[in-house]
């Protein structure tokens, strides 16, 4: 589907648009954000310091509680049942149960009075010697020694018989790990709030300050050229509102004066007896009229492509919040007694969401041409909000799926409305800037959503996170409702032709279209839907990762895409041929999947999964925009028979299928072969398809020559 990245180069234009061309604005934003950052960093520092000083004593206290309770039980066995310490049964098993219940305790050991380790659990063999050598001769309960990164607490077993000493080991590393996890969570929140703040400041300043200023500027410019018909069609109640109404007043006064003047001139002319003089007056009047009168009143509106950025970012953000745990949540609801495998049931809501979104994007696209992007966006907002709210209140798998579909419907409308809004506002000059607002919104949402959603979900639960999504989606809709200009320009549009059999036939016999769509786009979307949306959250959870870790790993995809896209554009600019980036990107994503083969080398598969996600992001960042360019070339070729926009929408349809079937395919494979092999299998699909692509496109020179005509990225 077209939900995602049409990723053009982030040009200087885009940077200017984002950070404002005005120096004052730039400084203001920088100042505000820096201040925010300093405040957050200071708070975080204090919080973490407090945590550090609190955690260690608490950990020790827990170890002491565990130690004392164990010593009691061992003492009972030795003294009351008269079991000699060396004949105690099942001590290791007993210890490992205790360790499993207390993740922060690293090892337990029972050591005899003559320093022989009788039973031990959790301590690496290599450290046994250090434990023995660090043992003091006489110990009191809770005696603390440190060795090799462990804090060892000793508890003598109070007994008439020789029972020995129990040692409880706490790892210093545990404290450090917990600290770095929390540090990362805090960092996530700081960065996300930073980005969100930036977006909002840009939006409000654009809406309320720089936009009106620019508008004013153009009004004055028109005035300088003698056109005094400019009227602000903006209803705001702030300082600018007052200024606008004064200006409108001034302008209407001016035109009134002109009308009066014109009337007087007419009267003077009519009063002349001398025909020549009258003609002269008429001529002068006409000249003045030509210069100062405009039949078309100039409507000044604060409308830019970038205005849709924040609402669009918000809806993506709302949806992406659940990215790291959506399959896990689906798994909780998936009924066991349906005769369908749980894996497929988990994939189904993702697939149906995508399907609904794609369908509504299609409907919304046509609708936007008639009623304007803003209204289409507003059509989408209520179902999106309701869908999120519904998941918060969901009871069964079926209503869960239903709510997701509802969200998908809303999301599809809002997404396409965002695109349409940009399209309404782009001209040839600012096309790149406009598009980059759109893509930027999507990317920032993809970056911020998963990690923050994971942190939130870990605190308040999966369902409650959807409540936050609902609020965010509602804010998105409200911003559009209250702040964006509701004006539909009645353009003379060619009546949109529906993709009929004839059009499909033309496209499906176009080798370039077929090869790019079916060998590149479908597989890559299949991979994204199947691996990133479906498999990765499940797999990482199965591997025992914390929710926040899952969030960060999924964020890697967005991060890599953001980094790779401009890089790819620069490479394409330098070497001229962007087409070759397409198989390169696809190859990178496919090759990444083979990393699962290296799993045995790592301690667990989390690392390889993270790298796979990263490479997927890099690969997709590299290939998506060149692939679209190739399709645009196809569009130009069939401009007369099918039309550029229809070619692109056909392409979106085809690639959407990949995203829709991804989770289903991955689910089906998962049932049969397990996680690692599913990833490997999808990797093989990608590699095979890329190979076919290369073979067809560059197989024969003559063929290649034919395909390459005009195949350069503009």
């Amino acid at each position, binding site marked *: 589907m077209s939900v995602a990245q049409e990723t053009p180069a982030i040009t200087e234009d885009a940077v200017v648009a984002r950070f404002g061309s005005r120096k004052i604005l730039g400084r203001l934003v920088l100042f505000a954000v820096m201040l925010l950052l300093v405040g957050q960093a200071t708070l975080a520092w204090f919080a973490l310091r407090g945590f550090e000083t609190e955690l260690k004593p608490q950990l020790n206290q827990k170890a002491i509680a565990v130690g004392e309770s164990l010593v009691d039980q061992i003492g009972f066995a030795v003294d009351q049942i008269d079991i000699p310490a060396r004949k105690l049964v099942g001590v290791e098993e*007993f210890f490992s149960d205790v360790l499993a219940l207390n993740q922060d305790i690293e090892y337990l050991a029972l050591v005899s009075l003559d320093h022989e380790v009788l039973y031990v659990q959790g301590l690496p063999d290599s450290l046994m010697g250090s434990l023995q050598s660090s043992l003091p001769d006489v110990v009191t309960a809770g005696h603390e020694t440190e060795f090799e990164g462990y804090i060892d607490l000793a508890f003598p077993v109070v007994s008439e018989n020789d029972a020995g000493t129990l040692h409880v080991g706490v790892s210093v590393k545990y404290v450090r790990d917990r600290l770095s996890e929390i540090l990362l969570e805090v960092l996530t929140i700081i960065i996300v709030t930073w980005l969100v703040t930036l977006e909002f400041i840009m939006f409000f300043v654009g809406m309320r300050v720089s936009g009106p200023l620019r508008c004013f500027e153009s009004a004055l410019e028109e005035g300088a050229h003698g056109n005094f018909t400019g009227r602000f069609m903006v209803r705001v109640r702030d300082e600018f509102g007052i200024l606008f109404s004064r200006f409108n007043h001034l302008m209407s006064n001016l035109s009134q004066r002109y009308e009066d003047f014109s009337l007087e001139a007419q009267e003077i002319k009519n009063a002349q007896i001398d025909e020549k003089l009258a003609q002269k007056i008429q001529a002068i009047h006409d000249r003045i009229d030509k210069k100062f009168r405009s039949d078309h009143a100039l409507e000044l509106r604060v409308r830019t492509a970038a205005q849709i950025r924040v609402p669009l970012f918000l809806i993506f953000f709302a949806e992406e919040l659940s990215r790291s745990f959506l399959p896990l949540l689906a798994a909780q609801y998936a009924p066991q007694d349906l005769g369908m495998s749980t894996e497929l049931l988990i994939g189904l809501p993702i697939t149906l969401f995508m399907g609904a979104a794609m369908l509504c994007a299609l409907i919304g696209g046509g609708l936007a041409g008639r009623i304007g992007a803003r209204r289409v966006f507003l059509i989408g907002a209520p179902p999106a909000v309701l869908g999120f709210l519904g998941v918060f209140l969901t009871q069964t798998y079926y209503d869960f799926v239903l709510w997701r579909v509802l969200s998908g419907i809303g999301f599809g409308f809002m997404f396409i409305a965002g695109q349409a809004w940009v399209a309404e506002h782009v001209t040839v000059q600012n096309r790149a800037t406009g598009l980059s607002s759109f893509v930027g919104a999507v990317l920032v949402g993809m970056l911020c959503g998963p990690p923050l959603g994971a942190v939130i979900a870990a605190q308040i639960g999966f369902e409650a996170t959807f409540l936050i999504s609902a609020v965010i989606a509602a804010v998105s809709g409200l911003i559009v409702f209250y702040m964006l200009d509701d004006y539909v320009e009645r353009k003379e549009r060619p009546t949109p032709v529906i993709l009929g059999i004839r059009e499909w036939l033309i496209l499906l016999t176009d080798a370039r279209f077929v090869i790019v769509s079916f060998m590149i786009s479908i597989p890559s979307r299949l991979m994204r839907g199947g691996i990133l949306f479906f498999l990765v959250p499940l797999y990482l959870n199965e591997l025992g990762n914390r929710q926040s870790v899952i969030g960060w790993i999924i964020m890697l995809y967005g991060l890599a895409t953001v980094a790779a896209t401009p890089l790819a554009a620069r490479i394409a600019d330098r070497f001229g041929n962007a087409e070759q980036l397409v198989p390169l990107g696809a190859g990178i994503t496919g090759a990444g999947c083979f990393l699962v083969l290296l799993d045995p080398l790592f301690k667990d598969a989390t690392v390889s999964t993270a790298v796979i996600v990263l490479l997927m992001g890099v690969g997709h960042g590299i290939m998506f925009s060149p692939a679209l360019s190739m399709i645009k070339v196809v569009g130009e070729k069939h401009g007369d028979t099918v039309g550029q926009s229809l070619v692109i929408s056909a392409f979106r349809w085809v690639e959407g299928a990949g995203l829709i079937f991804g989770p289903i395919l991955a689910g089906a494979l998962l049932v049969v072969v397990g996680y690692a092999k599913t990833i490997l299998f999808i990797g093989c699909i990608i590699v095979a398809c890329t190979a076919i692509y290369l073979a067809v496109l560059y197989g024969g020179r003559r063929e290649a020559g034919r395909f390459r005509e005009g195949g350069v990225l503009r």
Partner: protein
Amino acid sequence: MILAQFARLWLVLLLLIVSSGLPFAAVAQEGNRPFEIFAVMWRGETDVEDGFRDYLDSRRIPYNLTVRSLDLDRGNAPGIVEEIRRVQPDLVYTWGTGTTSSIVGKLETETPEAHVRDIPGIFVMVAYPVDAGIIDSLESTGRQFTGVTFLPSTSVQLKTIKSYGDFRNIAVIYDSTASNSRINVEGLRQEAGGFDMNLIELPIPLLENGKPDPEQLPALIRSAKDQGADILYIGPDSFLFRHGKVYTSEAIRAGLPTFASTQGPLKSFRAMFGLITDYYTLGKLAALQVERILVDEQDPEDLPVARLARYKLWINIDVVREIGIYPPMKMISIADFKTSPGS
């Protein structure tokens, strides 16, 4: 965070309203007339009845409990049956297999007139109600009658034995004339293989009068030892309970640990360890069944026989010391340790 807590609070409140309001409503419909419950014991009241009363009191269910006892003699049954007919209580409560079969009779009986069969009832302390012919199945009893079962399932028993030590050969010496024992051995036969155990069956030889011969017990225990048994199993067998002193002493002498599935051999004699149903808790479970029948007006026929989910693990510390087979630490941390009776 706050929201989730709020939602939870709301849920708890709702549950409270639902759970507390319903019984009151039902009781109110009865016009505050207390439920008449008629209990028949085998040998006076036990902890079961304490738990039974405490549960009903805690639920504020009004009731009158009339208690009669057969005093170990089935011959006293007709008089009590007569009294029940006269009183017409709301529910009949019977304690033990003997009491139950003489008061309410078996499922199939040729003398229905001798039993109370038209009043809802529950039984307690019946080891094998299905096999004893009192009900049809544990899930659906087939009559106006249900109850609670007190024995842990055979697999739970064997699991307990297995987690004490790696016993491979389990010997069961039993009274082949008692149906309870036969049923029990049949259960062991089916389950032992699954626990990697070999079952050695030793029915007690019978005297000329057809009764088992207690004199044979020492020889049987030695025979078990010779056949490689590493543990003895005592089921719900009243013959063994009567001769428990000899049995457990002989077992200790032979160095064989004993596992008991009922309280008797542990409480009165020197069995080494066993799983015990807490009678008080069992009584509460029985009262819950009664609540379902009287207050919620459920049909006893549709009420499955209830079983406790947890049992107590008893270990006789003196016997462990004497035999020298020590329980694993995991068991020590959860078991109740007792000393031998009279020591």
